[in-house]
C-alpha cells in the first residue's frame, strides 16, 4: 500500500510522544529537577523526551571531565598556603596553544632560581582544554577543573588568569576528583616512605 512507510514512521513518532507521558505518570514529580530524574533521562532505559533543562537542571560531570586548569595548594599547619608548583615549566612546554606563562622565582640574595612560581598566567581565551598540562605535571600541582560556567562581559579585563585566580585548595581537588586524588595521595605517600627509608639507611651507615 502506498503510504505504508509514512504511517509506519508516524507510528514511531507517536510512540515517542506517548512514552513521554507514560514516564511522566509513572515517575511523577521525580522525573524533572531531581538527580534520579536526570540519571534516568541519560540512562539506557530513557524513553520519550530526554532533554535536561539547563540551567535549572545540570548533568553531573564525570570525574575525568576537564575544563581550564587550576593550581593546587595544600594548607600548612598554620593555615599558610603551600603551593605545589615548583615552576619546572613542563606544563608550559607541553601546552599545545602555548597559553601558560610562568615566571620563575629567584632568590633575591643569590639570584639562583627558587622552585616556586613568582607569577603564573593562563590565557583562558587561548586554552583548548586538552588536559596535557595536568597529565604531565610531575607534582600533581596543576589539575583540570570542572567549572564550565566562565562567561564574562569583558574578555580583555577578565580572561588572563593570574596566580591568585588560579589557586584552589587541595580540598577542592579532592572534592571534584576523589578517585584520582586518592590514587595520587597513595603514590605520594609511598614515595615519601621510600625516601625516609633511604634516609634512615643512610643515617645508619
Amino acid at each position: 500500500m502506498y503510504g505504508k512507510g509514512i504511517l509506519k514512521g508516524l507510528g514511531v513518532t507517536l510512540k515517542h510522544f506517548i512514552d513521554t507521558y507514560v514516564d511522566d505518570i509513572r515517575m511523577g514529580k521525580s522525573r524533572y529537577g531531581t538527580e534520579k530524574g536526570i540519571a534516568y533521562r541519560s540512562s539506557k532505559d530513557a524513553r520519550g523526551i530526554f532533554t535536561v533543562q539547563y540551567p535549572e537542571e545540570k548533568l553531573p560531570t564525570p570525574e575525568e571531565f576537564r575544563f581550564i586548569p587550576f593550581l593546587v595548594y595544600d594548607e600548612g599547619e598554620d593555615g599558610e598556603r603551600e603551593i605545589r608548583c615548583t615552576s619546572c615549566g613542563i606544563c608550559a612546554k607541553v601546552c599545545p596553544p602555548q597559553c601558560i606563562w610562568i615566571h620563575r622565582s629567584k632568590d633575591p640574595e643569590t639570584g639562583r632560581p627558587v622552585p616556586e612560581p613568582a607569577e603564573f598566567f593562563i590565557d583562558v581565551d587561548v586554552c583548548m582544554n586538552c588536559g596535557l598540562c595536568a597529565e604531565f605535571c610531575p607534582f600533581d600541582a596543576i589539575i583540570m577543573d570542572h567549572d564550565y560556567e566562565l562567561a564574562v562581559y569583558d574578555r580583555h579585563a577578565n580572561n588572563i588568569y593570574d596566580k591568585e585566580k588560579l589557586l584552589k585548595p587541595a580540598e577542592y581537588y579532592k572534592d571534584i576528583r576523589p578517585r584520582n586524588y586518592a590514587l595520587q595521595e597513595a603514590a605520594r605517600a609511598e614515595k615519601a616512605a621510600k625516601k625516609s627509608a633511604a634516609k634512615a639507611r643512610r643515617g645508619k651507615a
Partner: protein
Amino acid sequence: MADTTLIAENDILARFPEGVSQDERKGYQGYIVAADRLVEFATALRDEFGYDYLSSVTGVDYLPEGKMEVVYHAYKSTGGGALVFKVQVPREDAVVPSLVGVYKGADFQEREAWDLLGIRFEGHPNLKRILMWEGFAGHPLRKDWKEAYFEEEKKPFDSRWPGGDVYRAEDKNPFGKNVVYPEKFDPEKWTPVGEEGFYGGLRGFDAGDGDEDLKTEQVVVNLGPQHPSTHGVFRMVVSLEGETVVRLEPVMGYLHRNHEKIGERNTYLMNIPFTDRLDYLASMSNNWGYVQAVEKLLGDKAKVPERAEYLRVIMAEFTRIVNHVFAIGTLLNDLGAFFTPMLYALEERELILDIFEAVAGSRMMCNYFRFGGVARDLPPGVYEKMRDLVFERLPRKIDELDRYLTENEIVRARCEGVGVLTPEEAIAYSAAGPVLRASGVPYDVRRADPYGIYDRFDFDVAVRYHGDVYDRYLVRLDEIRQSIRILQQALDDLPEGEIISGKPKYSIRVPAGEAYGRVEGPKGELGFYIVSDGSANPWRYHVRAPSFINLTALGKMCEGDKVADAIIILGSIDIVLGETDR
C-alpha cells in the same frame, strides 16, 4: 580489468628503465619519477599495474635542499598497500605536470598544493587558489613564509618559561600592521567585479543551448556561504537552467586556519588535541590516524599493548556510530524533515558522548590516543555502561531508526536515483568511505589494508550498488550495524593489562623518515602524511581529509539534477567544514 593481466609492482623499474628510480633516502619508500615522465608513469600505473585509486597528493618543501617534492599515494581499489611516487622540482620554479587527466581525484588536491605550497601544475584545467583568497600574499606552507602573528619557528616558545610575562599576541602585533598583500593588489580598490569576478570558476558556461525558438538564459545562484543546508560556512556556485543544475562548483576555505602549518610548529604530542578539531564529530578516529602515522615512524618503540588496541577499536567504532546517526539526522533535515529525526539520532549520540566524557574527559574534543597506547583506562562503571548500550539499547534503537525512515515514501522519492556516482567515477574521483561503498566498490581500509587489530573481528564491508543518495543513507545504516557487531566482539574480548607502552613522555624525538598512516574514518579514508627530520617537531604534516576530497565529485553528482537535490547530495556526502577547510 582482471587481476591476471596486471603487471606486478616489482616490475616497475623494468617497465620504466629511464626516468624512474627507487627513493633511497633513509626512512623513505617508493619511486622518484622525472617530471616529464610523470603522466606516462601514472597512466601505466593505473592501466597496467592496477593502481587505480589515487588517495593522496601533497607537496613537501625541502628548503635546505632547495627542492619541492610532490608526493602521490596510489592504491589498488581491490585492496593492498600503497605505491608511493614522488616528483622533485626546483623550489623557485616548481612546475609539475597535472595528473587530473589520469586521476580526476587529483583536482582539488593539486589546487591545494598550488595554493599552500606554490607548486604549479601544468595542464590543470582550473588551477587557482582553493582555501585562500586572491588577496593573499605568498604560499603559507612554504618554510620561509611567516604568519601574521608569527612568534617563533617552533614550539615551545621561549617567552613562556622561565621568564613568562604574559601578553596577547594581538596587542604586541596588531592586526593590520602585519598584513601583507600581493604586489599590485590594493584591498581598498579590489572588488570582484561582475559575473566574471564572482563566478570565475564557471567561465565555461554557455548561455542558451542552440534552440533558436526558445531563448533561455542560465542563472547563477550562490548557495551559501551562510546557509543552513551547507553544514557550515561553505558555498556552492550553481549555474541553473530553469531548475536544473548545469554546473556546480564548491567554494571553500572560510574556516581555514592552516592546520598543517600549526602542526609543523607543534611538537608531535601537541598535534593530538589539534587533530580533534579537524572532523570535530569524530575526534577519536582523527586521533587514531595521526598516532598511527607517528607510530609507524617510531617503530617498535611504540608497540601498542593489547588492551589499548581493543580500547582504540571500541572508541573508533563508537565514533562511527555517532557520526553516522548524526549524518542521517542532518540528511533528513536537508530533506525538510526538520529536527524530529535529528533529535532521535541525537539521543543515541548523547549516550555515547557520555561515555567519551567519562573516559576521555570531553564529549567531542577527546584527545584520547597517545603514541603507543591510550591516555586513560576505563573508569569504574563505564564498561558496564558500554555493554548496556551495545548489547541492549543500540541494536533496538537502530532498528527503530530503520523502521522510522527507510521505507518512508517521501524519503525514497527524494533520494532514489539522485546524485548518482558510478563505481568507475567514484574510483576516479578518489571518493572514499560511504560515498565510495554506496557506488558498489567494497573498499574499506579496515579490510583492504588492515590496521590495529581489525583483522581479528568478524564484520562485513557494507556495500550498495546504485550510487545514489538513498544508497549512501543505507550504507551508513548498514555500517552502524557492523560497528555494533565489532563492538560486541571487542567488549567480550577486552583483555586486562597495560594501556600504554613505556612511560608517557611529553617530548619525543621521532626518527627521520616519512610515514603515511590511514584509517577508515566515518567519512572515509583519513590519512596523515608525516615527514620527520629527526627533531621534536614534524617537518611536514599533511592531512588527507575525506570531507575535502569527497567534494571533488560533488559537481559531477549534481549535474542534471534539480537545485533542491544539490542540498541533499551535499548532505549525503556528509562533510564537516573543520576538516574540509583545515
